[in-house]
């Protein structure tokens, strides 16, 4: 246990060193945020009253997404794991008396937390004080905010579990690019990254609900803004827990199997 905690701290602290990358990231995220908001504004101006999501809620959704991008996006991948499989350095992970699944899980989540810690503060602080209607709104209620934090935490566990599955599959293919790309493209649509779920056609929305991706970011963001009532939040929180357990179970099984089959490279 002590080893896992130490590792978590180490990854988190070394992740916090990448300040230049964070500054560049923050700039891009502001740019994307505004770009999306202006596009939607033009779009909304043409559609009249009957919009699937209020403009303020949509803006809040977009800013939350940009602020928390490094935590919730499936596309953010820890290159070092794939690299260690490819060049065989993973051998050193296997000669340690720890559980590799937990180790990778910690690595992925600590890396994400470090990145989001560096970025989210500035984005939230600035966007809260932008002139309406371009600002990040406050949460709809205190209860919603607490629920949001809880959902976001579980969402982070879901996305991490998915990442570890992608990395474990790399053990068979020695490169996770292929499988990762397929999953990313799916995730892009199913997670609300390309379009918030309420803006998708009903049939696509229904498909989204089958998969875990929307529970990572889309769901917590909508709890925050009140697009989904807190009372419904509880129901989906159960679903989140189900997915966390299921994905961890699947990931651990795949990795265990992979460790039996793997050819450690190099030497």
């Amino acid at each position, binding site marked *: 246990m002590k080893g896992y*905690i130490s*590792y978590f701290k180490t990854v988190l602290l070394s992740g916090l*060193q990448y300040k230049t990358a964070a500054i560049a990231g923050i700039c891009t995220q502001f740019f994307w945020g505004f770009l999306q908001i202006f596009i939607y504004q033009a779009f909304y101006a043409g559609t009249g009253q009957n919009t699937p999501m209020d403009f303020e809620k949509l803006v809040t959704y977009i800013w939350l997404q940009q602020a928390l991008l490094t935590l919730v996006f499936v596309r953010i991948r820890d290159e070092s794991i794939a690299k260690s499989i490819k060049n*065989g350095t993973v*051998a050193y992970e296997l*000669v340690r008396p720890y*559980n590799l699944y937990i180790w990778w899980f910690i690595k992925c989540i600590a890396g994400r937390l470090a990145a989001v810690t560096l970025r989210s503060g500035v984005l939230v602080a600035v966007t809260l004080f932008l002139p309406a209607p371009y600002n990040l709104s406050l949460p709809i209620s205190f209860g919603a905010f607490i629920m949001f934090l809880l959902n976001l935490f579980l969402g982070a566990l879901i996305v991490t579990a998915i990442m570890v599955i992608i990395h474990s599959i790399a053990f068979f293919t020695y490169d996770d690019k292929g499988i990762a790309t397929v999953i990313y493209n799916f995730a892009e649509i199913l997670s609300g990254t390309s379009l918030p779920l309420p803006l998708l056609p009903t049939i696509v929305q229904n498909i989204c609900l089958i998969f875990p991706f929307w529970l990572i970011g889309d769901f917590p963001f909508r709890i925050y803004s009140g697009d989904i009532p807190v009372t419904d939040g509880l129901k989906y929180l159960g679903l989140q827990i189900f997915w966390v357990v299921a994905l961890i179970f699947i990931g651990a099984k795949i990795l265990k199997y992979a460790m039996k089959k*793997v050819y450690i490279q*190099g030497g």
Partner: protein
Amino acid sequence: MYINVQNLTKHFKIKVRDKGLVNAIKAFVKPKYRTIKAVDNISFGIEKGEILGFIGPNGAGKSTTIKMLCGIMQPDSGTCVVGNINPFKNRKEYVANIGVVFGQKSQLWWDIPVIESFELLKAIYKIPEEKYEKTKQQLITKLNLQDLLDVPVRQLSLGQRMRCELAAALLHDPDILFLDEPTIGLDAVSKVQLREFIKELNKEKKTTIILTTHDMTDIEELASRVVVIGKGKLLYDGSLNKIKSKFQSTKKLEIIFKNLKAAPKIESKIIEKDNKKVLIEVDTKKESISSIIEKYSRVCQIEDVNIHENNIDNIILEMYKEYEL
């Protein structure tokens, strides 16, 4: 036997790709595989406290064997038991008690100072504070790490890093140490230091050491016993001296003398001679060096004698040749 390897076998199935688009498509539809017998039915044992030199030409299967002995790769067949533990099946339990250095790879975390890597290893191996401090201090002194501790690993030179790697592998005071090419890329001074260190470690802590290397001086200095493999097969298991005497039958003998009356009659071939010295190639199986010296001592006044042994690299070369590697 402390480590017992029985009929250990590992075959790699690799995809074969021919050049060209048509072949690429063919390979995609119906991939062709080739099997490499990386380790082919190898058996040997290692006693506790022994230093075993594991040698063979490139691609012989040394690293593959080490990986199986470390418990990180599953053998296709055969067994390997270390002190009653099956390394692969009980990996977590087993690896707590071994140290590993793969010369080609780094076990230190790239971005953080060396000392933080050590602290992390302390937590991973659950090393008690006191023991950790003691071992750490010993390693720092012996490997001369004082000035390297605060440096991020990526800024270390290869030789500096290798010293840190060795320390990292030994912090938890393992019973077995695997060294896969630990001296690769090191300069002469670093090599000598490293060998001294390994020797001492083995003597003081009775650590069992399995070493692969292409530097035969490493083997000569460290290993009491060698296992030679080639193309996945075990070729030799025994003392280095035996290999030497088997593949080094000829030595060069140089005698420097004064007042040679008449050259004595010897069986060995004289390569060079003048009125001060003579150089003889001696086949030690046919004629002993001492008998030649004795013959010369009768007919002249010997001032000096030099014996040139075939160097170990050449001996190994001879051996690989004989085994057709």
